[in-house]
């Protein structure tokens, strides 16, 4: 080795500890020197620093993943590949995953969000699949009080739109939520779903000694230097110098990459594929080699670059976008290159699979770094001791009596309909091409997006959900509720939930309270996934989401769920369809105001406990909803979520442009009845005969169900309880509040 920069030669003062600068601890440094049985040079140190970061090595989250259910009859591939795979019958499969791009989006929101989309699409492509839809989950501070937040929202939405639109992958859904906890550290999580035949599945594996590693796509530059370790630190001033690490997305290149890769995959040239995400060439090649138990060698001088004088470690960890690694059968390199050439792209051999289990970096044929592959994959993990956050004692002691019922409940309803978390997100999704590919049967604006599979009588439901406030007030039950809510969105749309991908967005796990939130949320997610039979097939962790000024974000697990609609006839939407239809409510309403949108928006309180959730009842009720939908008994279906029953009812009226009158006989506070968020509830409409059948079926199964009123052609939404009129509002006013809420919010001046 010619290029030895012995660390020890400079190992004197603190500022000389290069491993600290690289993001490794003293004990990690000791561990890696024992793995190597010598001290690393600069190249080797960079390899460990990247691979052992939270982002690549999942150092804090890996030990917690054991809780997850990851198998099931429809699960073809669980966590461990670029994305999980589920079976949707007929030898067809879907692959999907979500990924965060929080820190890049905080700094360069347009590019950060755009490259987030690009990254997750390549994960799907690397599975051999054609990307058929994407979704996104966005969290920001409240825009009302900050021009900067409005700028972030505009730029993030623009970035997601521009990238996805150019690719021709429809952006069909997602969510957009607000809380001050995200002010300094917004969350941008993107999800992509791909489709393929079972026989087309590809793996990220470097088998076959002598096979070639080919890099395809964009040239390599110094972009995103150290992005993986950057994502594994708090966002603060000290990281200022990392902020040069901005990648620029090139969706046009990505589109060509998709076309060319899928064309190559049709032939028998490629044994393995891996996208280049965090830590670029390094992590993609280490992972593929490790899976095969092989070694690899890569010559950095062969990598096509667009910047001069790049150091070997810079080439290895560059996060230039729109690149993929193909493991190509020996002798097939020219054929691969020919297909890429057709699309005006190159495919270049940068190294080979070896049999010695070593990760060898060369420069102009000379070795400049050499470490065991296994040791790079063997990032140390940390099991920490969590501590219940101090605020929970106080928030759990909240009693409904602590707040007064508002005088004018009509105004309360209108306020909620226009509230940031509830109001129409059309401002967002009209910037996304949600119809390209001509499969979008249910477009954004309903509970789940529904994408048909061409030439088949079946479709796919897609959702993304989270609730930071719930998880802040009760991480475990909050996390359960998210899975339940996502599954509700699926079943009301006619889809049977199949599996989830999870995005773990948390603060710095080294803080015991944050670690508690992380651990409890994972336990909650796992419990709900087991109860609802939706295994976790992949996910992403984004920790260290906090700033000195605003502290840690709300604990925000985000889930992306996919469901199967077994016949196009089952597709159901939330809008009321026919005047005269009966309105039914399934599920029990209790005196639960804690953690609600209502407390937050109307009383300015983020407090109380998350509503009770009986997972067994949830599962039973969801199966029932799906059963009656499949039986053709239901004309519209909507889950009752943020803002409670009154909001759900108003949404169905607004979307259907119809009026409704409903009456209850419940001994409950008016605000609990109208706006409480008791779980496991649904709002349906059906013809008279069907409504009767639904009630009968429900009582047979011991489920709470009631016909509460009827749809009419009038312009009013009227809600009575015990002969009192609680709500009597004009649908047009509801609609106005719901549809202009977002615009108003984006125009408010500080």
């Amino acid at each position, binding site marked *: 080795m010619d290029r030895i920069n012995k660390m020890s030669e400079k190992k004197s003062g603190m500022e000389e500890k290069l491993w600290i600068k690289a993001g490794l601890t003293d004990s990690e440094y000791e561990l890696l020197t024992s793995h190597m049985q010598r001290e690393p040079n600069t190249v080797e140190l960079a390899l460990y620093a990247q691979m052992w970061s939270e982002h690549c090595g999942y150092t804090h989250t890996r030990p917690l993943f054991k809780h997850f259910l990851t198998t099931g009859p429809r699960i073809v591939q669980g966590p461990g590949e670029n994305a999980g795979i589920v079976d949707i019958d007929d030898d067809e499969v879907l692959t999907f995953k979500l990924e965060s791009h929080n820190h890049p989006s905080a700094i360069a929101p347009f590019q950060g969000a755009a490259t987030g989309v690009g990254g997750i699409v390549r994960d799907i492509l690397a599975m051999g699949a054609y990307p058929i839809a994407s979704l996104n989950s966005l969290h920001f501070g409240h825009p009302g009080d900050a021009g900067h937040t409005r700028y972030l929202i505009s730029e993030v939405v623009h970035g997601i*739109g521009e990238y996805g639109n*150019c690719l*021709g992958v429809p952006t069909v859904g997602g969510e957009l939520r607000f809380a001050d906890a995200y002010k300094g550290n917004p969350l941008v999580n993107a999800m992509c779903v791909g489709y393929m035949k079972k026989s087309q599945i590809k793996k990220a594996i470097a088998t076959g000694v002598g096979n070639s590693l080919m890099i395809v796509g964009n040239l390599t530059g110094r972009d995103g230097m150290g992005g993986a370790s950057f994502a594994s630190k708090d966002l603060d001033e000290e990281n200022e110098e990392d902020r040069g690490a901005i990648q620029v997305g090139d969706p046009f290149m990505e*589109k*060509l990459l998709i076309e060319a890769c899928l064309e190559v995959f049709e032939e028998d040239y490629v044994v393995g594929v891996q996208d280049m995400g965090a830590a670029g060439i390094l992590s993609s090649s280490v992972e593929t080699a490790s899976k095969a138990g092989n070694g690899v060698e890569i010559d950095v001088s062969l990598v096509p670059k667009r910047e001069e004088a790049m150091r070997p470690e810079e080439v290895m960890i560059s996060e230039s976008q729109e690149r993929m690694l193909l493991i190509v059968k020996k002798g097939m390199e020219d054929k691969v290159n020919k297909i890429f050439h057709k699309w*005006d792209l190159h495919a270049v051999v940068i190294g080979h699979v070896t049999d010695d289990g070593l990760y060898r970096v060369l420069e102009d044929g000379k070795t400049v770094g050499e470490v065991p592959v296994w040791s790079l994959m063997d990032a140390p993990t940390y099991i920490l001791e969590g501590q219940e956050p101090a605020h929970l004692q106080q928030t759990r002691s909240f009693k409904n009596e602590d707040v007064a019922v508002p005088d004018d409940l009509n105004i309360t309803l209108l306020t909620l309909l226009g509230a940031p978390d509830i109001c129409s997100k059309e401002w967002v999704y009209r910037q996304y*091409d949600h*119809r390209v590919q*001509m499969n979008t*049967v249910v477009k954004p604006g309903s509970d789940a997006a529904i994408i048909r599979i061409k030439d088949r009588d079946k479709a796919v439901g897609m959702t993304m959900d989270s609730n930071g406030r719930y998880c802040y007030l009760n991480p475990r039950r909050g996390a359960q509720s998210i899975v339940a809510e996502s599954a509700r969105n699926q079943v009301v749309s006619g889809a049977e939930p199949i599996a989830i991908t999870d995005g773990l967005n948390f603060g710095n796990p080294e803080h015991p309270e944050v670690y508690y939130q992380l651990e409890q949320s994972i336990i909650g997610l796992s419990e709900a996934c087991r109860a609802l039979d939706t295994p976790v097939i992949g996910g992403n962790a984004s920790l260290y989401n906090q700033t000195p000024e605003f502290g840690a974000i709300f604990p925000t697990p985000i889930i992306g769920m996919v469901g199967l609609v077994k016949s196009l006839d089952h597709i159901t939407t939330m809008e009321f369809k026919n005047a005269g239809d009966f309105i039914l409510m399934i599920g029990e309403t209790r005196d639960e105001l804690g953690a609600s949108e209502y407390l937050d928006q109307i009383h300015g309180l983020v407090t109380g406990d998350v509503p009770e959730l009986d997972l067994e009842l949830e599962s039973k009720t969801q199966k029932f909803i799906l059963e009656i939908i499949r039986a053709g008994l239901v004309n519209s279906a909507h889950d009752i979520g943020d803002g409670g029953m009154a909001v759900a009812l108003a949404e169905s009226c607004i979307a259907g442009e119809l009026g409704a009158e409903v009456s209850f006989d419940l001994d409950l506070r008016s605000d609990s009845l109208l706006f409480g968020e008791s779980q496991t509830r649904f709002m349906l409409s059906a013809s008279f005969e069907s409504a009767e059948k639904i009630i009968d079926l429900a009582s047979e199964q011991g489920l709470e169900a009631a016909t509460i009123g009827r749809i009419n052609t009038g312009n009013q939404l009227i809600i009575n309880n015990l002969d009192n009129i609680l709500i009597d509002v004009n649908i047009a006013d509801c609609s106005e509040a719901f549809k202009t809420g977002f615009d108003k919010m984006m125009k408010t001046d500080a």
Partner: protein
Amino acid sequence: MNWGVLLFPGSNCAEDCFHVIDKVLGKPVTYLWHKDTDLGDVDAIIIPGGFSYGDHLRPGAIAHLSPAMTAVKDFADRGGLVIGICNGFQILTEARMLPGSLLQNKGIKFLCQDQTLKLDNTDTPFTSEYDPGDVVVFPIAHNEGNYYAKPKTIAEMEQNGQILFRYCNADGEVSDATNPNGSINNIAGIINRAGNVVGMMPHPERSSDAVLGLSDGKGVFVSMLKHLEAKHGSDQ
């Protein structure tokens, strides 16, 4: 009757157009490649939507210079039917096969929505299935759909019946309030003087497969088909 769908790097509605001709119309259709100078034996050419060359510089700025576009011009000069949809429209204006240009939407944002359109001239090979004044729904999805031409050009086009579709509301009213992108005279689709080259921002193909809840757009392709069939009948 052979249909051709022209593929550029970055086209992303080519499969959609192909699907409609193949599955909805049940007619033979092939892809044409931007580098080809010989387009083979086709009777109608669709230039699909998307982001050819990433829309870099201006939408259509790079694509219109490709070898295939020279062949498309020849094809049109010989009377062949050409329809450019969305990015295809932008390419046709860049190639000067249609007058005017498509500027950025007045709201400077990408706009994807189901759009109501009013039929103007229905006496063309592309619109014969409709009646004048019909109101139809085709989705739009574009960032540069704001049609502009010099006032004199617009006046001539209006006089010659070159406007095929205008943005309107559900009642067929055409006004500034029903104009999503700032197009002059709410223009959504136009035809050349010779009557065989059309450009339109709305996507008729996305409104052709009833499963998706929209089917008004099928008429555009059926009109073209009937025209071709009549022509072939008389050729024989």
